[in-house]
Every structure is written in structure tokens, then in C-alpha cells.
């Protein structure tokens, strides 16, 4: 299956990765020319490293301070404020990433080499957590399909398995007597889900590199699935023939399925999925909003699941 870029993105809109890497230098130069901080900020906005995408929502993004302070990343603690306090200890340079399994071109990549061939895009996506809250996040990344195409999957590859770093010395949540999950965190997608144009690997959000608490240096974003499918700090991508194990499903198979598509009709045993609270909206008296099937991406992805009973395959 060949995924083509939507035709309304002109190649001139896409910033080359080199320019992206040089953006700090560019800003630095602007400041050095003493054009004042205001202009510097404008320059920064102008040098957004990523091309706009027709897949972006026009919803107002959630404030950066909330996106970077309210996180589920159990490797750094189970409280939502833990990752922003603890994740600074993670070394993301150097970073090595393995692509292997049922592919013609397995390889170990240094992160920069891994990313370099791909054009970065901004994708403003709705993000729905299984716990009943949601955000709108401007990610910067590239389609996972590009990565898979480069690796040249073999005919019998049907699933993609992902793995997060396991490094207890830098991840306090992986240390100690009491462990909430099996490490490393693992996730998986069906191959057709993985090469869907909405599925991306993110390396940044807003105008910056991905903060550690959001899954630096590289994470998966699948906007029509609950947030925990978006595995963080990826060290391995493996093409496989059988459905791979996934962390939350292993932890509690009755509550977390392999697919975990956002579905207001299928309640989590402990949370209604009919409604959601939008983070950063309205303070104490914020109202709930109805949750949409496939998190509002039904038009693009519902056909992937045609004929499947989504109550069974939750």
C-alpha cells in the first residue's frame, strides 16, 4: 500500500531538516543583530521547522504548560506531575533506534540519521486519554509509513511492535520494590494502522524538540486511539507476523484491548468514555464534552475496522 502525501501540501512548504536543525542558530543570529526580543520571538515563529498539514485540526491547542506538566509516563512516576519533575534525568543524546523483524533492511540508527531523510510536518491532533480527559497538541513529526517503507517490510509482516527504553538508572519509575507495569513498555499496531497517513512519529511539539516528559526523543502518535497507545522514547520498531503484546493489555486485559480505539460506546470498566473533560478549559467548572467515535477521525480510519465488532475488539 502506497501512502501519498495529500496533494495540497506543496513541497516548498516543507522545511528541510537541515534548516530545522539550524533554527536555534537562526534565532541566535536574529538576537545578535539586536532586533529586540519581540522581533526575535517573531523570527522564532517564522522559523517553525515544520510544514502545515491538512490533517491538523483547527481547534485551539492546549496551553504548552499543561501539555508539558500533565503527563502519564509511568517510567517517571505514576502521578501526572511526576514526569515533568523527574524526566530531566533522561539522556536522549546519543540515542539509538533499532528497526528489525520481518524487513528487508533491518538497521540500527543514530537518531539524527533515522530522522534526516524525512520532512517534518506540524500535526495538530486531538489527544484523548483513556482516563476521560483530552487535549489538542501541535506535534512535529513525520508519517510512520515513511519509516516502514524505508525498512521494506516482507510479505508476511502484519503487525508493528514498539518498545520504550528501559533504563532504571535514569527512569525512577522503573526502580524500587513496587512496579506498576512490566518494563520495557511495549505497544503495537496492525500494519495497516501503522502506515495510515494519520499515524506519525513525533520529535517535537509546539515549536520545540519533544520535552522528555512527552516522550523524547521520539514517540508514536495515533490520534484515533487512547493516549497510552502512543508509546514514548522508542528504542525499537519491529515488524512481526503475530499480534504483539502491549503493556496495558498485559497488565489488565479486561480493561485495555490491543486496539484501544477511542469509542464512546465501549466504556472502560472504571470510566465512562461517553464524555471528556478538556484540559485547560474553564477551571473548576469546566463542562464535559461528548467524545466522538475514533476521537473525531472516523472519516479517515473507520474503514480500517469495517466488519469488526468493536465491542469485542476494544
Amino acid at each position, binding site marked *: 500500500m502506497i501512502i501519498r502525501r495529500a496533494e495540497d501540501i506543496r513541497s516548498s512548504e516543507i522545511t528541510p531538516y537541515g534548516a530545522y536543525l539550524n533554527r536555534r542558530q537562526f534565532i541566535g543570529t536574529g538576537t545578535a543583530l539586536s532586533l529586540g526580543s519581540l522581533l526575535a520571538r517573531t523570527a522564532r515563529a517564522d522559523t517553525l521547522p515544520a510544514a502545515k498539514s491538512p490533517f491538523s485540526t483547527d481547534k485551539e491547542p492546549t496551553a504548552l*504548560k*499543561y501539555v508539558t*506538566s*500533565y503527563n502519564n509516563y*509511568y517510567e517517571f512516576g*505514576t*502521578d*501526572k*506531575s511526576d514526569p515533568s519533575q523527574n524526566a530531566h534525568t533522561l539522556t536522549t543524546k546519543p540515542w539509538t533506534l533499532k528497526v528489525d523483524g520481518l524487513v528487508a533492511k533491518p538497521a540500527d540508527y543514530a537518531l539524527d540519521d533515522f530522522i534526516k531523510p524525512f520532512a517534518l510536518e506540524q500535526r495538530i491532533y486531538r489527544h484523548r486519554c483513556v*482516563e476521560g*480527559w483530552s487535549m489538542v497538541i501541535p506535534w512535529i513529526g513525520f508519517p510512520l509509513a515513511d519509516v516502514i517503507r524505508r525498512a521494506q517490510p516482507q510479505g508476511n509482516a502484519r503487525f508493528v511492535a514498539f518498545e520504550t527504553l528501559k533504563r532504571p538508572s535514569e527512569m525512577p519509575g522503573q526502580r524500587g520494590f*513496587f512496579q*506498576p*507495569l512490566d518494563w520495557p513498555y511495549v505497544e503495537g499496531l496492525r500494519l495497516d494502522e501503522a502506515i495510515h497517513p494519520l499515524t506519525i512519529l513525533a520529535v517535537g511539539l509546539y515549536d520545540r524538540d519533544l520535552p522528555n516528559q512527552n516522550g523524547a526523543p521520539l514517540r508514536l502518535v495515533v490520534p484515533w486511539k487512547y493516549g497510552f497507545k502512543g508509546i514514548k522514547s522508542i528504542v525499537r520498531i519491529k515488524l512481526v507476523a503475530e499480534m504483539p503484546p502491549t503493556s*496495558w493489555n498485559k*497488565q*489488565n486485559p479486561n480493561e485495555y484491548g490491543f486496539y484501544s480505539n477511542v469509542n464512546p460506546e465501549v*466504556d472502560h*470498566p*472504571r*470510566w*465512562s468514555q*461517553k*464524555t471528556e*473533560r478538556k*484540559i*485547560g478549559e474553564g*477551571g*473548576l*467548572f*469546566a*463542562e*464535559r464534552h461528548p467524545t466522538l467515535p475514533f476521537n473525531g477521525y472516523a472519516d479517515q480510519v473507520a474503514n480500517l475496522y469495517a466488519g469488526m465488532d468493536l465491542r469485542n475488539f476494544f
Partner: protein
Amino acid sequence: MCTGFSDGTAMSIQNTGTWVGAPYWRNLSQLPTMVVYLVGIVPAIWWFWLGAIGRLGADPMRELEHALGLWALRLLIFTLAITPLRQLVGVNLLRYRRALGLLAFYYALMHLTTYLVLDQGLNFDAIWADILKRLYITIGMTCFVVLLPLAVTSNNLAIRRLGGKVWQRLHRFVYLAAILAVLHFLMSVKSWPIEPVTYALIAAILLGYRLARFLMRGQRQGKLKRVSLDRTEPTALHL
């Protein structure tokens, strides 16, 4: 009933919990109970204040809801710690137990109100579905229902009306409330985070202590009975 031993060895406990005859330092504090109420309500005021000025972070309703529930549990555990503290450490805080128990109830009430009004927006269809379908909410609601009669009877008039025995038996339901409260906390979170597990362990120790004491006493009494039946002459027993 106060029999007023003054030699410092015997003791008697009034309904108000004054430990007469104990050395002065053992009555850790002679503060009026009103102070406990005033201090106890400070966390609620603090959290409501933070919420009102928008300082509760990304998800203020959830923060407030959790904080109130957590304080209810802490206070409930505190009331359960009072007897072991007295029996094992010799620190007597009995006269504050009613205040602590009532505070626990008030926090549970605020926690529930936050859930009903701010979390669910008084959408009673959704609330009813929650109670029926989600076990941790069923358990939380049950816990509140168990606490309610205890709160209503936490006054001298109720003790007089019910009689000490009945009142005491009724108030043993606080053990059930504590079990339900920690279950509610444990089941409301994903996986097994350390915080609810810690509270569950503390509650288990406090309840286990009582169970062990109860079993040991039963055993001792059984033994004594047997001993006195075997003997032909009655023996003076010192417990």
C-alpha cells in the same frame, strides 16, 4: 462514668475521652477540640482557594476531588490510629477522636459533592450509571452510606439515647468504612501506584492490630475458662 482513681495507675475513660489519672504529659494535649476542627478544615479551605484562583494546574476539578477524598481517608485513618497510640505508645488523643471522625465525614461529603456537581455536572443518568457499572464508585458510595449514621450519632445525646453498648457496636462500622475507603482508592487508579497501596497497608495494620488483639483476648479467655473448670478450687486471676 468516672471513678476517679488518683494514684496514676488505674484509669477510666469517659465518653469525652479524658484519661483520668494518667501522668500529665501523657495527656499529650489539653487543647480544646475546637482547635482540631479549625485546623482540620484548613486543607479544604486551601484547596478550594487554589481552585478559585486557578492554581490547581491542568485538571483543577480532578485535583480538588482527589485532595478532598485523600483528606477524608487520612482523617479516617487517624481516628483508627488513636486506640493503638494509646495502648502501645501511651499517647492519649481520645478526646479528639470525635472531631477527627466528623472531619473525615465532612471531607467525604465535600469529595462526594465535588464528584456530583463539578465532575458529573449533576447529570443523574451518568451518576446512576457510574454507581451501577463502576465498582469503585459503588464502593465509594457504600462507604459514604456507612459513614452517614456514624456521623449522625457522633454526639453525647445519641450515646445516651442508644446506650453505650449499642452505640459502640454501631461505631465499629468505621472498620468497614475504612476497608471500603481504601478499596475505593485502590480501584480508582490504573495499575498499583505506591500512594493508595501505602494507605491500604496502613489501614490494614491498624485493623489487623485490632483483629490480633481480639483473637488473643478470645484465646486467653478460653484458656482461663478451661483452667477454672479444671481446678477444684477457684483461683484468683489477675488479668
